[in-house]
């Protein structure tokens, strides 16, 4: 990786910060959506790409963060200062329980167990009255903090951008730390790490909880943006989609998660828009499914892999 390319994420953040007020309402909203999904995808990248743990239940933590925000806001709304930590803590708490149990297994078992526990959370919100049942609930007042009001479109944009920069920077730091090096070691050869005396289970659990908390952050932002939550947020389609994003972008690379989130959102938008694909727009699931299959068959290393194959290396 050359020097120019390592500044690319920073440059993108600066461009976004300048472009924020210039975007049309539709474009601004779309960018906010992509940024929230990027945070969600980044949080999963910590698990799948950096630690080698394939979780198929990550949407649970996203949904719990969103639900915690709406439920705690109540009728009077609340301050970002305590709503945000609360949303992240709830997601992290559930991640601690699920992680402690599911990390007792590995490989395919781990995939199935994470999916099953996410489905359990889905059932709790879907079948009981805690969160308004299958219809979900509305957020009466969006979170505020002093002059920052999430009701304001531009404020929303900058809060989400700041959260994305924070998440990205945090993961870069983790990647460079001893902790990150240990996670990479676990991904490559868990047996050897254990033999070298690393408490592998504790490291994996820590990664799982951090990833859950960051997904909760994304959930908080989503609730503040949409003003409504429903059980579909926790559905396994959401877990599948976010897994798809990081693989679409490129596994193990932070920017891959962001690229994947953007590409996936655009792809879904295009496939469901009449003017692009004509009558097929009503059947976007079909075209999306076929696109996924073709993608897995042809591009196992993601879009980043393709870009690196095409560019001559110095």
């Amino acid at each position, binding site marked *: 990786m050359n020097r120019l390319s390592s500044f690319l994420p920073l440059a993108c953040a600066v461009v976004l910060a300048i472009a924020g007020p210039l975007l049309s309402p539709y474009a601004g909203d779309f960018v906010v959506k992509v940024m929230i999904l990027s945070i969600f995808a980044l949080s999963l990248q910590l698990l799948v790409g950096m630690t080698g743990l394939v979780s198929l239940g990550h949407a649970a933590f996203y949904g719990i963060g969103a639900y915690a925000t709406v439920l705690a806001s109540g009728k009077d709304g609340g301050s970002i200062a305590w709503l945000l930590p609360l949303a992240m803590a709830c997601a992290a708490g559930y991640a601690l329980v699920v992680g402690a149990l599911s990390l007792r297994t590995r490989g395919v078992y781990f995939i199935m167990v994470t999916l099953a526990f996410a489905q359990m959370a889905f059932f*709790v919100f879907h079948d009981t009255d805690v969160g308004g049942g299958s219809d979900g609930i509305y957020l009466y007042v969006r979170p505020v903090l002093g002059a920052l009001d999430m009701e304001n479109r531009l404020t929303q944009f900058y809060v989400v951008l700041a959260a994305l920069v924070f998440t990205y920077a945090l993961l870069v730091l983790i990647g460079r730390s001893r902790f990150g090096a240990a996670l990479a070691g676990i991904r490559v050869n868990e047996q050897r790490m254990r033999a070298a005396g690393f408490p592998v289970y504790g490291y994996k659990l820590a990664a799982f909880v951090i990833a859950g908390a960051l997904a909760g952050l994304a959930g908080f932002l989503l609730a503040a943006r949409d003003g409504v939550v429903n059980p579909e947020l926790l559905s396994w389609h959401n877990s599948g989609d976010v897994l798809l994003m990081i693989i679409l972008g490129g596994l193990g690379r932070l920017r891959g998660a962001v690229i994947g989130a953007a590409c996936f959102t655009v792809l879904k938008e295009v496939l469901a828009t009449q003017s692009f694909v004509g009558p097929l727009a009503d059947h976007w699931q079909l075209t999306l*499914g076929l696109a996924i299959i073709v993608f897995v068959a042809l591009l196992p290393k993601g879009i980043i892999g393709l870009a690196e194959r095409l560019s001559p290396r110095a």
Partner: protein
Amino acid sequence: MDFGTFLVQCLNAVQYGLLLFLVASGLTLIFGIMGVINLAHGSFYMIGAYLAFSLAPLFGDNFILMLLAGVVLTAALGYVLEWAFFSYLYQRDHLQQVLMTYGLILVFEELRSILIGNDVHGVPLPAWLGGSFALGDLMSYPWYRIFASVACIVVAVALYYVVNRTRLGMMVRAGASNRDMVRGLGIDIRRLYRIVFAAGVALAALAGMIAAPMSSVYPNMGASVLIICFVVVVIGGIGSITGALVAALLVGFVDTFGKVFFAELSGVGIYVLMAVILIWRPEGLMGKKA
């Protein structure tokens, strides 16, 4: 709860558990032998149920004949799918298997929506299986549920016989424990895989066909069954058919009695069961220690 109600709930639990076993055995067979995690397995259950819905008017009272026709059709479908999609997945890691089969789910669901639509449809019972018999003074139990249980038991016994007592079953078991050795002994492993996959698809579809008159057919019916089957496989231990049977019955009982005692939180019961098993025996009841 009086004795009659208790008996009815027990019968329901066994019947549900046996049905789950049919789906889960296919899943565990495919995973145990080919090492592929197949998210689309629930879709095969869904395809079976919708097949029953489409075929029922054609076959009328020949219910058994319809089941056989459905099994043949879906086994053929499985054979083709293995050749077209899954044979590429054996060398790939689990992540890519998850993705491709996830893509297949979307395709199957959308095709179902295009061909049949998104409405809930009932499937008529065959006349000779309608009605119910008295159980105690107050309760009665439908004959069809008894038929469903018996059909599942027949299939389970046949499966046990084929896997443990025939030459094909021997190759399957050998393939599960050492793939390369089996290939070295001159057995066409690709054909073996194709047969196992087709059998797994047919088992799931058969379960769907049997369930259709009881549950009616509705969109996304495959996904919920898939996740419950994952729970069954995790509890039973991957690759173990006996484990799948025990776990499926266990899940059947927990789910049925959970609905009786804790109506609102009934969906959570089987996951709590799974959590307990994970603490006690992370490799599953009948799984081999890693």
